[in-house]
């Protein structure tokens, strides 16, 4: 999924095949199929924790903007870009029927 296909109403879930843990406040992920280690920084980890298969990216961005005191438009763009990136790596899966 590309950034242009992702918007505020897009809903994602974490790939259930992944092994992931938080260490030093940051999420590390192993994809068993290829044994690649993925690392998320603190803010990406905050997004990862909020991905629940039900919340839209807009809601997640709003929650983050409140917690971090950041402009909602900036946060929304960053969240959508991150979701597209993680989706392209098969770490996140778009909910059925999502663009």
């Amino acid at each position, binding site marked *: 999924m590309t950034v242009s296909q992702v918007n505020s109403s897009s809903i994602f879930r974490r790939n259930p*095949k992944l092994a992931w*843990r938080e260490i030093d406040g940051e999420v590390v992920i192993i994809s068993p199929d290829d044994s690649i*280690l993925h690392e998320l920084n603190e803010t990406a980890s905050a997004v990862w924790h909020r991905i629940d298969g039900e919340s839209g990216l807009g809601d997640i961005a709003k929650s983050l903007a409140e917690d971090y005191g950041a402009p909602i438009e900036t946060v929304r763009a960053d969240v959508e870009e991150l979701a597209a990136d993680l989706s392209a790596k098969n770490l996140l899966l778009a909910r059925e029927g999502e663009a």
Partner: protein
Amino acid sequence: MGRVQKISADARSLYISIGNVSMSLRFFEERLLRSAQARYRDFSGSPCDGIRVTLNDPAGFSAASPRFEYRLRGSHLRFSKRRAEFRNVPHEYALDSLIRILLTVALLPKDGFLLHAASIVRNGKAYVFVGRSGAGKSTVASLSPVGTVLTDEISLLRRTERGWRAYGTPFWGEFRAGGHNASYPVAGIYSLAQAAENRLEASQPKDLLRAMLPCVLFFSSDTGANRALLDVLTSFSQTVAGFRLHFKKEASFWEVVAR
């Protein structure tokens, strides 16, 4: 010498123990048995409730579906609970590889794992030097006193009630000084980087995990197994002191590691 027991007219068993994981290897071929006896002579075990491994059984695989299965260059491993079957094992080197693979599965529930690392004993503690091929594991081993090297290639690490311990293994690289079947508490783990001068740099747990992961021997694509592995590695990296060791190829590197 590993203990051998004749168990039938066609097969004999060799009992070994690596990192406190016991195995009975059941051979149908004298040649393979003899080479295994020599290779694992310092890792003798006793008949007990270990993993029962059958090699090249003329009867073929059992019908039971395996919990773990792996193919390696024509050889085939199947493992279910306490029983393993190896097929098409042409020589001791293939056997050695299959035992390593089996160990990675058997160690996981025991909070253990295999790591491409040299382990060297100093002052009663094990110093673990991790790195991919060419990083300097054998160099570090060759620059250490005779008799102090647990392994120069593959370290076996396990969490015990008293902390993490490094175990000697019969898995050797260029050093080839023979196995050292003993275990010691882990003093620290050092990610190797060859340099013009010796220098030590503390690693955060995440940095240590990043350095270790490409060097962990693991062959399962099962999600649960990978989660368990990540738990074990996370525990290790958060418990054991980790460092980046910039070292030159001289024994003086010990001056910055352990005085």
